């Protein structure tokens, strides 16, 4: 695959005076500390120099894969790497690969706010129809709560503030255009060739983009995912998250079907922008997979803001009435009068019509591309990162996968993305931040755990008079004192959790948390001052996993 590299590099520190400092203005996303071992596919790296300087550009003369070419003559390709899909994972892998000296091209569909078979855009889901527009809409919708809060702090308005959806959409779209332009610049500054069009794999080293063929030593598939809407009567009336982020007018009364983070975030958005919001979920609680206490807490807080939940209801049909409004029929009955019906019922990998089956790339039953720990598919020259592999569908994880792949392929440093202790957030209102295990997961993974919780009214709410509360939770392995899970639901949760994710990843203990002095006055300091466990769960004493007995004994 990659050849051994023989360039030697200078050491960073010199024998100059003691007070020498090396000041390098990196952006935090652009560190290029690279380790250059001699590459041996079957052994780990042995010795390396650290270096800060950008490596000189190298051309990779390749040896063709023995499996596909049986020791034939070295072949030269148009590109070292051809990436299909310029979203978070694809851009990261391409850019970093180019920084390592590879010759890289990426193809992407032309820009549109709504994705389709023929439209997409540089930046991908995150930038154009996910994280970024979502967060902007969350910011916009939070103001209504802030206006309410401000009354308790002495502010008053001649008239009730009202919201103009058109202004928000126009400004949001201007921002997306600006960002897609920035992403294009990032690619061109890194020397990556951007080709607009739909890419389709022809053979293990060839991609067809709208009729033109390109060859590459490696192909990366990073086409992401798209919203999934079940095929029920009236599904043509339903909008998905793409459309919801770009509606021509604001919903007056909206039904949101779904219980995952997308449903819950949009519920908060439309509620904050003064729509009437109904959420229909199949389960008893929202956010399956999250810590149960957090799920209860966030639903309670959202209900207090006026969002109406319909639990244990499955959608059966959407009916359009003569007056243009919609009704939603579920297994429990029909609710009428919606201006919009939105389904946030999951996203599926975008793998149709890419030529994958022809070339032999194996997929799972959801259409996700199967990859090994290095993100390699069943075809040795074809790789995949991001939502199309359906591992952990988060932008920073796609970035990690893309960065690791670039290192594996072009820095002679095989790197497996590490999926442990990945923090994440739900931008509901109030938001959720979490890292590590939920209580349910911790009980399964560890015999004995201690659970610390805090549920309090933050200072701001004592003055605003609003029913806002904050919930925080630490889960500790009783045997090792390691903090294995951390959860928060309340204002600023996502910002608070980022710092603590470092602690969880580093395997820090509860004692180390407790030895940290708080920052005051904040909500975050609560995490370093939880003295008494709310409950202790002991399974090991009962000589086997008789969970319910042990829990009863522990008073859970």
């Amino acid at each position: 695959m990659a050849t051994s590299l023989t360039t030697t590099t200078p050491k960073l520190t010199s024998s100059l005076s003691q007070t020498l400092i090396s000041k390098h203005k990196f952006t935090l996303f652009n560190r290029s500390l690279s380790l250059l071992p001699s590459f041996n596919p079957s052994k780990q790296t042995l010795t390396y120099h650290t270096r800060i300087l950008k490596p000189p550009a190298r051309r990779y003369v390749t040896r063709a894969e023995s499996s596909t070419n049986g020791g034939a003559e070295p072949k030269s390709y148009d590109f070292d790497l051809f990436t299909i899909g310029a979203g978070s994972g694809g851009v990261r892998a391409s850019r970093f690969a180019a920084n390592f000296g590879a010759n890289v091209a990426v193809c992407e569909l032309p820009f549109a706010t709504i994705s389709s078979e023929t439209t997409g855009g540089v930046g991908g889901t995150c930038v154009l129809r996910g994280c970024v527009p979502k967060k902007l809409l969350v910011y916009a919708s939070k103001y209504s709560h802030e206006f309410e809060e401000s009354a308790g702090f002495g502010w008053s308005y001649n008239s009730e503030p009202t919201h103009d959806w058109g202004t928000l959409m126009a400004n949001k779209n201007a921002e997306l255009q600006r960002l897609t332009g920035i992403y294009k610049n990032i690619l061109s500054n890194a020397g990556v060739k951007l080709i607009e069009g739909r890419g389709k794999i022809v053979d293990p080293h060839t991609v067809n983009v709208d009729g033109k063929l390109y060859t590459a030593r490696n192909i990366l598939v990073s086409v992401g995912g798209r919203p999934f809407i079940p095929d029920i009567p009236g599904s043509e009336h339903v909008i998905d998250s793409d459309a919801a982020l770009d509606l021509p007018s604001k919903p007056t009364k909206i039904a949101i079907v779904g219980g995952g983070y997308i449903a819950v975030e949009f519920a908060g958005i439309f509620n904050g922008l003064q729509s009437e919001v109904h959420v229909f979920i199949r389960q008893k609680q929202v956010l399956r997979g999250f810590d149960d206490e957090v799920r209860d807490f966030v639903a309670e807080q959202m209900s207090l803001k006026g969002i109406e939940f319909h639990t244990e209801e499955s959608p059966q049909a959407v009916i359009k009435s003569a007056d243009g409004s919609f009704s939603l029929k579920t297994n429990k009955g029909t609710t009428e009068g919606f201006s919009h019906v939105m389904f946030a019922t999951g996203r599926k990998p975008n793998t149709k019509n890419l030529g994958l089956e022809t070339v032999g790339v194996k997929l799972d039953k959801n259409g996700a591309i199967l990859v090994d720990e290095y993100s390699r598919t069943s075809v040795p020259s074809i790789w995949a990162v991001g939502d199309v592999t359906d591992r952990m569908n988060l932008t920073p994880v796609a970035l990690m996968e893309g960065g690791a792949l670039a290192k594996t392929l072009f820095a002679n440093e095989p790197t497996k993305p590490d999926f442990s202790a990945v923090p994440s957030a739900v931008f509901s209102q109030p938001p959720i931040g979490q890292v590590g295990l939920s209580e349910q997961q911790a009980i399964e993974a560890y015999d004995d755990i201690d659970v610390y919780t805090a549920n309090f009214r933050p200072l701001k709410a004592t003055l605003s008079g609003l029913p806002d509360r904050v919930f925080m939770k630490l889960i500790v392995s009783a045997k090792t004192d390691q903090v294995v899970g951390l959860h928060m639901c309340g204002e600023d949760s996502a910002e608070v959790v980022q710092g603590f994710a470092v602690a969880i990843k580093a395997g820090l203990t509860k004692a180390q948390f407790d030895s940290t002095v708080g920052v005051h006055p904040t909500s975050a300091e609560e995490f370093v001052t939880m003295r008494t466990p709310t409950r202790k769960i002991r399974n090991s004493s009962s000589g086997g996993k008789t969970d319910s007995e042990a829990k009863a004994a522990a008073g859970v």
Partner: protein
Amino acid sequence: MVLNVIRKFNWAINTLTSLFSTNVIFKVGICELPFHPISSEVVGGVGGTCVIRGCVPKKILVYGATFGPEIQDSREYGWQVSENVDFDWKKLLQKKTEEIVRLNGVYKRLLSNAGVKLFEGEGRIVGPNEVEVIQLDGTKLSYTAKHILIATGSRAQRPDIPGQELGITSDEALSLDELPKRVVILGGGYIAVEFASIWRGMGSTVNLCFRRELPLRGFDDEMRALVARNLEGRGIILHPQTTLTQLVKTEDGIKVTTDHGEELMADAVLFATGRIPNSKRLNLQAVGVEVDKTGAVKVDEFSRTNVPSVWAIGDVTNRMNLTPVALMEGTLFAKTVFGNEPSKPDYSNIPCAVFCIPPLSVVGLSEEQAIEQADGDILVFTSGFNPMKNSISGRQEKTLMKLIVSAETDKVLGASMCGPDAAEIMQIKVKVWCVRPRLGS
């Protein structure tokens, strides 16, 4: 946060009460001046500076002030807000007062629930094991104690310039009857900077005068420069390398003269020129407890004074004047003296925040300190960016985040941030040395 402070205090009390269960009963008495928002020689209140005239009311006012600019920003997000948005200072202060009175009550209950006897009055030390409490009606009560703990905190200083009686300190600032429309602040520390942001957010004209080139001496220089830029960006008028020479009362308000000869008109002049330990009336000299030249009670690593039965914690010892540090010192004092577990407070890597708008928060070494103290080379990582929220609101205000790393060991020596939510973010654990590759994973 409020509950948290109480709970931490409660934990300290609980540490004592839990000792009761070991069949050893410790009797604890505490004396405190009667409650008043503005402290003096004769008034104070259970809860102390933090709860009554520091952290808590300050944060309430910062919240109040932040709404103003937020309302402006909401317009670009599509909100149509009436041109006239009114701010009622009296309403905010009334609610602030209700809250601190409530907290004062909560603290009293915490003490009584823990079985601590509370005496209202002024305490002074009479002997190494004897305390006198002068009650409100003048009667004196004497008590003997095996151990005496001094935790009387600090008070704001006033500069000795003509007309200083026309100026106010932070105590009064947190209890003004009216919002001062024009403010002159003398000082460059966190109190000065926070009040500048508070009043500016509420729409006042603010002039901030400080002795050095930049405010917040002691903090990372790059961060100080950004804070100054942000204050200016919000419309605060900065007067670096300036001090005030006199205040004169006129019909139009207070006329303030600077040492550059400039004259400023103000409805309020805030002196935020430092706080000094509150140890004068404790009668320390009678017992021989040593103080330093600022009046701070001298203590060893276990918070013990030179008199073996007398101890001191918190701002009166002038070590690190932060509430969580005082809580740490108090908790470890209780452990040492009553828990049979001698424990020294650890002052390394204590995070702290300045609640200007937007806030600054730091932990560990600044760049300048790292250059001085670290062995070998250091790496400085910075990320300066316009936060996403501002991309739509149009506010031109960059966030800066900074990591200081030892090149040899890869340890993170310091971290700082200036931007929205900085204080919540910086509760990050740098207390335990984390090797940086973990940070980058």
